[in-house]
C-alpha cells in the first residue's frame, strides 16, 4: 500500500473503545474458563474427595502377610529332630526382569549360584503366582554368594536376596520317611489354599508329618499394611493388622535311639542278604504308638530344605526302589503266611475249627485239575491250629479257608484292619486289598474261583497289605483284641510349650473274639519260635512270638522261580508269658526281593531285638542270608 502524502486524521477513539470492549470480553472469558475449572475442582476435591482419597490409599497401600514361625519337631524324649535356621534365599520377581535382559540375568545368576540356567528358567516359568510375585530360585545360599548377588543387584534386575527360615533336619535321612520335608508350593495347591493365606513363594509340608500336620506347624500368618510406591517397592509398614501366630510343635512317638537301632538292623540285613528294600516298624501294641519306622532306601530331608536340584530330584524319582516312598505305609505287598492269623482266628471264632481239632495236612489239595501244594511237599501229618500255625502248613490252612469261605475270610481280614488304611498320621497310606466275591466281580467281572479261596487263606493271590497293616493286626493279637490307630505324633505343644493336644490312644475297634481264642493264637505264634521254624530265634533270652511269611511276586526267572519277600511280624510279652496280652513291643520286618535260604526279615528283627533289649548274645545267622537263590522254606 502506498502511504498518502499527508497522514489522515484518524479518530482513534472508536478503535480504542472496541479494543477495551474486547479486553473486557477476554476478561469475562477468563473468569468463565477459570470458573469452569473451579467447578470441576469442587466436584473432584470437595464432593468426591473421600472416594479419591480412598483410591489414593488403595494405590499406595498393600496388605501383606507376615510369616509365622513354623513349629519344630521333637522325638518322644524331647530330642530336637527339626529346627528352623535362618538362611539366604535368592528370589526373582519376573515383572521386574526386563525381557531383553532375561537370558543374560539368568545366565549370570546361574553362574553365581552354580545352577543350570535351564533349571532357573523352568523355575521362573513354573511360578505359581503372578508376574509380580517373587519366585524362589535358590535356598540356603552361602552368605558369600548372597552378598555377591546383593552387590551385583544393578546388573541383576528383578533379583532379590531374602532371609528366610530354613528347616534343619538334625539327623539327616534317619527320619525322613516320618518327618517328610517342606518344599515350594505348587500352582494347584496354591489355588486351593490361597484363601488360607498361602503365598506363591510359600513353603509347604510335602511329605511325612510336615505334610499331615501342616496346619498346626504353620501357625497363622499375620497381616500388615505396607506403603509402596508406583513400582511396587515397599516403603514402610504402616500398621500391623494381625500378629503372626507361631505354629505348634510336634512331639513324636518315635524314639530316636530305637530308630537308630532299627536302621542299623535293616541296613545290616539288606547288606548281608542283598535286599533291594527293607522295612522295620516297632510299635507299642497297647497304644498304637510307633517307636521306630525304617524304610530303606530313603532320602535326606535336608536335600529338600536346601532346595533340591531338578537333577537330584529326577534321580530320586527314577530310582526303581522308590526312595521317596515309605514302603511301610505307601506300598502294599502280598502278606503270605503271616495272613494265616486271620484264617486261623476267623475259623476258630466262627467255630469252623476247634482249638484242639486235628486236621490232616496233605502234600497238596486237589481242586479240579489243579494241585495246591504245601510248601513242605510231604505234608506234616495231623495238625492242630497251634502246630499248623507253628509249621505254617499250607494244606492245613487251605482246608481251614475252605471251611471258612471267602466272605467270612474277608470279614475277619477287615476286622483285623486289612483292606483299609490304618489312619496313621502320615500321608499317602495304601489301603491294601481284601478279596471277596464283590471285589472280584467289581474288579474282574468274575466269581471267585475255588482255588483262589485257598490262596486267600495263606495270604497269596489277590491279598495285599502294607507292612503297617500287618503289624497292626498282630498288635491287636498281642494286646488282647484291640485294633489301635497307629500314631507317630504323640503330643502337640504350642510355642510356649503348653500341651495343645495330649496323647490319646485311638481305638479303631475291639475284635469280637473270646479272649481264649486270641490266647490260643498267641500260643501258636510262640510255637512258631519254639518249633525252630524260625531257626535259633528261640535261643534269645527273651520270649518272642510271631509269624513268618514269604510271598512270591513279580516275574519268574530263567529257572521258573519267582522272586519273593520275607516277613517276620512278632511281639514280645512283657513278662515272658505269651498267654498274657501285655506286650509293649510289636515289630515287623519286611525284606523286599529276598533270595536267601534264611528269612531275611526274621534275621533283621532278631538283630533289632538284640539291640533293643541290649542283649549280650548275638544269634544272627549271616551265613543263612548269604546262601542265596534258594526258593523254599516259609
Amino acid at each position, binding site marked *: 500500500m502506498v502511504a498518502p502524502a499527508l497522514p489522515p486524521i484518524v479518530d482513534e477513539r472508536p478503535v480504542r473503545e472496541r479494543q477495551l470492549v474486547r479486553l473486557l470480553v477476554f476478561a469475562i472469558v477468563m473468569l468463565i474458563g477459570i470458573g469452569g*475449572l473451579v467447578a*470441576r475442582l469442587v466436584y473432584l476435591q470437595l464432593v468426591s474427595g473421600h472416594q479419591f482419597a480412598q483410591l489414593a490409599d488403595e494405590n499406595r497401600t498393600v496388605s501383606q502377610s507376615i510369616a509365622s514361625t513354623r513349629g519344630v519337631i521333637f522325638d518322644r524324649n524331647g530330642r530336637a529332630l527339626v529346627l528352623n535356621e535362618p538362611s539366604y534365599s535368592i528370589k526373582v520377581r519376573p515383572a521386574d526382569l526386563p525381557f531383553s535382559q532375561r537370558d543374560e540375568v539368568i545366565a549370570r545368576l546361574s553362574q553365581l549360584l552354580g545352577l543350570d540356567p535351564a533349571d532357573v528358567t523352568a523355575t521362573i516359568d513354573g511360578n505359581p503366582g503372578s508376574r509380580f510375585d517373587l519366585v524362589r530360585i535358590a535356598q540356603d545360599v552361602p552368605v558369600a554368594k548372597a552378598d555377591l548377588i546383593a552387590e551385583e543387584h544393578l546388573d541383576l534386575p528383578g533379583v532379590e536376596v531374602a532371609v528366610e527360615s530354613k528347616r534343619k533336619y538334625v539327623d539327616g535321612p534317619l527320619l525322613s520317611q516320618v518327618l517328610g520335608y517342606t518344599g515350594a508350593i505348587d500352582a494347584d495347591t496354591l489355588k486351593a489354599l490361597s484363601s488360607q493365606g498361602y503365598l506363591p513363594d510359600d513353603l509347604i509340608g510335602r511329605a511325612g508329618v510336615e505334610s499331615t500336620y501342616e496346619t498346626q506347624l504353620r501357625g497363622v500368618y499375620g497381616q500388615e499394611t505396607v506403603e509402596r510406591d508406583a513400582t511396587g517397592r515397599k516403603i514402610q509398614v504402616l500398621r500391623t493388622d494381625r500378629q503372626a501366630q507361631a505354629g505348634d510343635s510336634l512331639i513324636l512317638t518315635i524314639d530316636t535311639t530305637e530308630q537308630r537301632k532299627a536302621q542299623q538292623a535293616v541296613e545290616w540285613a539288606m547288606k548281608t542278604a542283598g535286599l533291594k528294600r527293607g522295612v522295620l516298624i516297632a510299635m507299642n501294641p497297647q497304644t498304637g504308638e510307633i517307636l521306630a519306622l525304617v524304610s530303606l532306601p530313603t532320602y535326606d530331608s535336608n536335600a529338600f530344605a536346601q532346595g533340591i536340584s531338578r537333577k537330584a530330584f529326577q534321580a530320586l524319582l527314577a530310582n526303581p526302589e522308590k526312595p521317596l516312598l515309605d514302603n511301610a505305609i505307601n506300598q502294599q505287598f502280598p502278606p503270605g503266611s503271616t495272613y494265616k492269623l486271620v484264617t486261623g482266628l476267623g475259623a476258630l471264632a466262627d467255630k469252623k475249627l476247634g482249638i484242639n481239632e486235628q486236621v490232616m495236612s496233605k502234600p497238596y489239595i486237589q481242586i479240579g485239575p489243579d494241585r495246591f501244594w504245601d510248601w513242605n511237599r510231604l505234608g506234616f501229618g495231623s495238625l492242630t491250629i497251634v502246630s499248623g500255625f507253628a509249621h505254617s502248613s499250607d494244606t492245613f490252612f487251605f482246608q481251614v479257608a475252605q471251611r471258612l469261605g471267602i466272605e467270612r475270610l474277608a470279614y475277619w481280614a477287615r476286622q483285623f484292619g486289612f483292606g483299609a488304611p490304618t489312619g496313621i498320621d502320615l500321608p499317602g497310606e495304601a489301603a491294601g486289598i481284601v478279596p471277596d466275591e464283590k471285589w472280584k466281580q467289581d474288579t474282574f467281572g468274575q466269581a471267585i474261583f475255588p482255588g483262589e479261596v485257598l490262596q486267600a487263606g495263606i495270604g497269596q493271590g489277590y491279598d495285599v497289605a502294607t507292612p503297617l497293616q500287618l503289624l497292626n493286626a498282630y498288635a491287636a493279637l498281642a494286646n488282647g483284641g484291640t485294633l489301635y490307630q497307629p500314631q507317630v505324633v504323640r503330643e502337640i505343644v504350642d510355642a510356649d510349650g503348653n500341651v495343645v493336644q495330649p496323647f490319646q490312644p485311638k481305638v479303631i475297634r475291639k475284635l469280637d473274639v473270646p479272649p481264649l481264642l486270641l490266647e490260643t493264637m498267641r500260643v501258636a505264634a510262640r510255637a512258631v519260635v519254639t518249633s525252630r521254624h524260625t531257626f535259633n530265634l528261640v535261643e534269645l533270652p527273651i520270649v518272642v512270638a510271631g509269624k513268618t511269611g514269604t510271598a512270591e511276586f513279580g516275574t519268574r526267572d530263567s529257572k521258573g522261580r519267582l522272586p519273593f519277600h520275607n516277613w517276620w511280624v512278632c511281639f514280645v510279652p512283657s513278662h515272658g508269658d505269651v498267654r498274657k496280652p501285655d506286650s509293649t513291643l510289636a515289630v515287623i520286618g519286611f525284606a523286599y526281593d529276598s533270595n536267601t535260604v534264611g528269612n531275611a526279615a526274621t534275621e533283621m528283627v532278631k538283630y533289632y531285638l538284640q539291640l533293643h533289649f541290649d542283649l549280650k548274645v548275638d544269634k544272627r545267622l549271616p551265613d543263612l542270608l548269604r546262601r542265596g537263590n534258594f526258593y523254599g522254606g516259609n
Partner: protein
Amino acid sequence: MGVLKAQPAKVSDWARNSVGAVWRAYDLQLTIYAALLAGLGLAMAYSNTVAAQTALLDPSSTFARGLMWAGIAFVVFLTATAFDYKWLKTFAWPIYLANLGLLGLSLAIGDGVSGAARWVSVFGLQFQFSELAKILMIVVLAAFLAGRHDRLDRLSTILGAGVLVAPAGVLVMLQPDLGTSLVLGAILVGMLFMSGASLRWLGAFGAVAVAFVPIAWTYVLRDYQKQRLLSFLDPSSDPQGSGYQLLQSQIAVGSGGLFGKGLTNGTQNQLDFLPVQTTDFVFALVAEELGFIGALLVFGLFIALIWRILAAAHRSTDPFGSFFAAGVATMVLFQLLVNVGMVIGVMPITGIPLPFITHGGASLISLALGLGILQSINLRQARAEW
C-alpha cells in the same frame, strides 16, 4: 497529538525520567504475582525433590535446577525490562526469521522423548525453543498488527497474521509438538480478537477451522496424539495405558480435598503414582498437597496476573504494546485453561505447560522475557491523550 509512530526511543528519554516516575509506571503487582507463581513452582519442585530423596541442592535435583532456572529467568526479566521494547518493532523481521531458524534447527538436531525433536542442548542445558517461539511470535504479530492498526478490521490483516504464524506452527507441528502449535493458534486468535479484528471474518475462519478438524484428525495427527486426545473421554477404558496418567492425576487432585495433604505429603506424588508430576501434571501435585485452597490460590494469582497484563494492554498508548500484552495474556490464559483442564480430566492431554509453575527452563525464561518486555512497555508509555 496524532498517531504515536513506532520508532526507537532515544536513550536520553530514559535518563530524563525521574526514578519516581519510573516506579509509578512500573507494575510492581505484575512482578509480584508472577514471582509468587514461580515460587509455587519451586515449592512443587522442592516437594518432588524430597520425594526423590535426592539432596536438595544436588545439581541433578529438580529443586536445584528449578532454582537455577528461576535465577536465569530473573536476569532475563530485568534485562528485558531495562531494554527499550521499541527496538523490537524495528527488528521484528529479523526476529521472525531467527525464530523460524531456531525452530528449524530444533527439528534438525533436537532430540526428545518418543522421537519428538523438541530439546536442543545449549551449554549442556536442555532448551526447548518452541517455548521461546511463542514469545517471539507475539512480538512479530504485535509488530505486524501495530503496523496495520488503522486497517485492523480488514480481511488482509487476518490473512496476513495467519500467513505469519503458519510456518512456525508447521515447524512446531513437525517436531511434533501439538500443544505448542495449539498455543500459537490461540495467540493468533487472541491477538486478532483483542486488537479489534473483524468479528465476521474471525467467525468465518473459525467455521473453516472447525470444518478442518476431521481432515486434521485423519492426515495430520499421529496415532499417539489421537490416543491421548481420546483417552480423556474415558480414562478407565485403559487404566494401565494411556488412561493411567489421567486416572492417577484425578486421584491425586481429588484426594487432596479442601486443605490438601500438606507439602511433601502427597502420596500420589511422593510414591510416584503420578507421572511427570513436576512438568505437565504439576497442577495435580499442587491440588494434592495444597488442596482446593491451594488451587484457588493458583487461580487467584493467575486472574490477578492476567488482569495486570490486560491493564498494561489498556494502558499502553502504543498499539504494539497493547497487542503484545494481549498476546501474553492469551498465551497465559490458554495454557492455564488447557493444562489444568487436562489435569482434572476435562481437556485432552496435550503437552502444554502450566505457566510459571511447570518445571522447565524454556517455559519460565520465555515467560520472564514476555513479562520483562511488558514491564518495559509499562515504563515507556506517554500517557494516552484520548
